[in-house]
């Protein structure tokens, strides 16, 4: 529960304390029941556990202090908004995607019920007065990755970056021009001009965050992963919400411990269940439903290609350019390589999935698709066709954040595990 100091802080940023208590009680209960229920967690996960709680407490204080001293910040959603550029203009990006089921119905105030739970959770929090960051930003930057989001940005008057829908040269040019326009936008917001020197620093900094995330993730390739899929998810979620330097240090401590665990052959799992990859939509902080359903059913989530997985940190920005124009192009290229299903076609995603299956010794793929995400839902069939050719089975789960269908999901998940690993029958 929140302490008195936190209450004061939340009141200062305009949070409805009564409803916020309900939200936190709901989130904490789920956090204990899912992520914290894993049997053999590294002790270095403590930082990430506290990061989960801090996102509605001390992190809010940090950003409030920063802003009191004149710092500028923007709200963001997708992993398309380039952190490097915002940071180089002394603008702090705050990812706002909601992963909690609790506020979902509050979105009814402005949004239809049949749009994705991520949008509904995010704005449900805003409309119920439980989002602590609502007053801690000077602008909000959306992007054109899905129809419901585009119109939500229009409705709320957000700044919008245009993510193209194809990957031809003309689209690449358009994207570069959008990235340059974004630089102008953040420069105007803070009055700070982005210099080559400063941008080089922030490129390196954000790349460092990607590299520690990659390093944590690499451990999951091992036959006995020292970190669970649930914990790896929490690491990604915390990356999006906490201070970048502190996060990198937290990851470095975790990497040291994981290294020691490997030496002592300590696995995060009690049983060597089927190795699965999660593919599809993100699981923002508060949502660990499908990861939990899988791992509590004896499957091991050893890879996650979503936006709260490898899509977020797979590629780094090329650090070789020294001039501003070269760096801007390197940034645009890196973000343009993201294999979001909003692209047509999206061959890179299939290639990445097949490569990950090999590198992480994946036995089966679980499509985790948020309800009403048409592009990932339909693209699952394209992925399955490719998986069929390499004889990798898949299971498609289309669901929201609520736990009402968990038992039905577990029937499918356990069956999927039994289908992947029929030799289990021999162990009776």
């Amino acid at each position: 529960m929140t302490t008195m100091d936190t209450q004061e802080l939340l009141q200062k940023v305009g949070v409805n304390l009564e409803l916020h208590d309900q939200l936190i009680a709901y989130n904490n209960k789920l956090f204990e029941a899912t992520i914290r229920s894993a049997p053999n967690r590294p002790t270095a996960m403590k930082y990430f556990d506290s990061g989960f709680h801090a996102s509605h407490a001390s992190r809010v204080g940090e950003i409030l202090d920063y802003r009191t001293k004149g710092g500028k910040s923007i709200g963001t959603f997708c992993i398309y908004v380039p952190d490097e550029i915002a940071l180089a203009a002394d603008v702090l990006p705050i990812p706002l995607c909601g992963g909690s089921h609790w506020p979902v119905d509050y979105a009814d105030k402005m949004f239809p019920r049949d749009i994705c739970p991520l949008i509904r959770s995010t704005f449900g929090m805003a409309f119920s007065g439980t989002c602590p960051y609502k007053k801690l930003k000077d602008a909000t930057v959306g992007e054109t990755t899905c129809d419901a989001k585009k119109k939500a940005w229009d409705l709320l008057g957000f700044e919008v970056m245009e993510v193209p829908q194809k990957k031809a040269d003309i689209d690449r040019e358009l994207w570069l021009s959008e990235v340059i326009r974004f630089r102008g936008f953040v420069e105007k917001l803070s009055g700070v001009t982005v210099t080559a020197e400063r941008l080089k620093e922030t490129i390196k900094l954000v790349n460092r965050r990607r590299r520690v995330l990659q390093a944590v993730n690499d451990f999951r390739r091992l036959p006995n992963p020292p970190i669970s899929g649930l914990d790896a998810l929490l690491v990604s979620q915390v990356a999006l919400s906490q201070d970048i330097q502190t996060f990198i240090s937290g990851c470095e401590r975790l990497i040291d411990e994981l290294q020691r665990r490997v030496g002592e052959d300590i696995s995060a799992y009690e049983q060597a269940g089927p190795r699965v990859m999660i593919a599809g939509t993100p699981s923002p902080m508060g949502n660990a439903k499908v990861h939990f359903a899988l791992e509590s059913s004896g499957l091991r989530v050893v890879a996650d290609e979503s936006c709260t997985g490898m899509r977020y940190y797979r590629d780094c920005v090329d650090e070789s350019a020294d001039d501003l124009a070269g760096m801007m192009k390197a940034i645009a290229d890196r973000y343009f390589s993201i294999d979001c299903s909003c692209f047509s076609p999206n061959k890179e995603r299939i290639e990445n999935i097949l490569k990950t299956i090999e590198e992480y010794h994946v036995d089966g793929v679980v499509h985790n698709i948020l309800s009403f995400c048409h592009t990932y839902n339909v693209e699952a069939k394209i992925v399955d066709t490719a998986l069929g050719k390499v004889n990798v089975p898949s299971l498609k789960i289309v669901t929201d954040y609520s736990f009402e269908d968990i038992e039905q999901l577990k029937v499918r998940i356990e069956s999927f595990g039994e289908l992947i690993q029929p030799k289990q029958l021999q162990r009776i």
Partner: protein
Amino acid sequence: MLNCGIDIGSTTIEIVLHDGKSIVGKCMTLSGAFPAEHAKKAFTGLLVDLKLQRSDVERIVATGFGRNYFDHADRVFSEITCHAAGVVAQIPNAHTVIEIGGQDSKMMQLDDEARVRDFVMNDRCAAGTGKFIETVARTLNIPVEETGELGLLAPKGCEISSMCAVFAETEIVGLLHQGASPESVLRGVFNAVARRILGMAGRIGMRDEIVFTGGVAKNKGVLRALQDITGHEIRVPVEPQFTGALGAALLAASEGSRTNRVSQTSVQAIA
């Protein structure tokens, strides 16, 4: 040595005791508000009836919706694996299994080695499940066991467009007001359920032999609609509601050897 399979479903619980060759005892009870307790009670009752001790039973495998909450099980398997095992034991050439229970409907594809290759299952709604038929029976004030025979009396089914158990009720009331007979409403409902299953088949395919199992397989109206709509001959095991429990008992007994098409229980043993 005996092995036991317990299928704790959303509506009913079935228990099968198997000696490796045939079924030596079985029973069925309602899941009710305390399914795990009811399962335990039914199991103990079955042992008493057969004058057996707990120690006569080597292993218990639980399946069904309540499988993870039954403390007395040595192992759990999903319904999909258990139904496949139970079906193959009775109909060795089964390649497609349709299972409709109280709260869900599933379709499985088996390979030549009787392994589950692929499956589909309904999402969280009750469309195309036993619950749907139960709701309709209640609206029509007809015992659910009688719906099958009754529906087949109608030469043709009404067009039921809603597959939602809640909305279908409204639609059916409307149809009755317009003068539709309860028989034609039922037949229409069976067709709607079959179309739902056909939709699942579109995703994973159908291959002979096709077996229909689970409690709803006892409904001749649904069976007929499935045959009409899919154009395939569909077989139903004797006492299809026990298929999951039988499969669980066989998995409990299988001790290292996978259930395969060779080691089968005779169909007669089940009856």
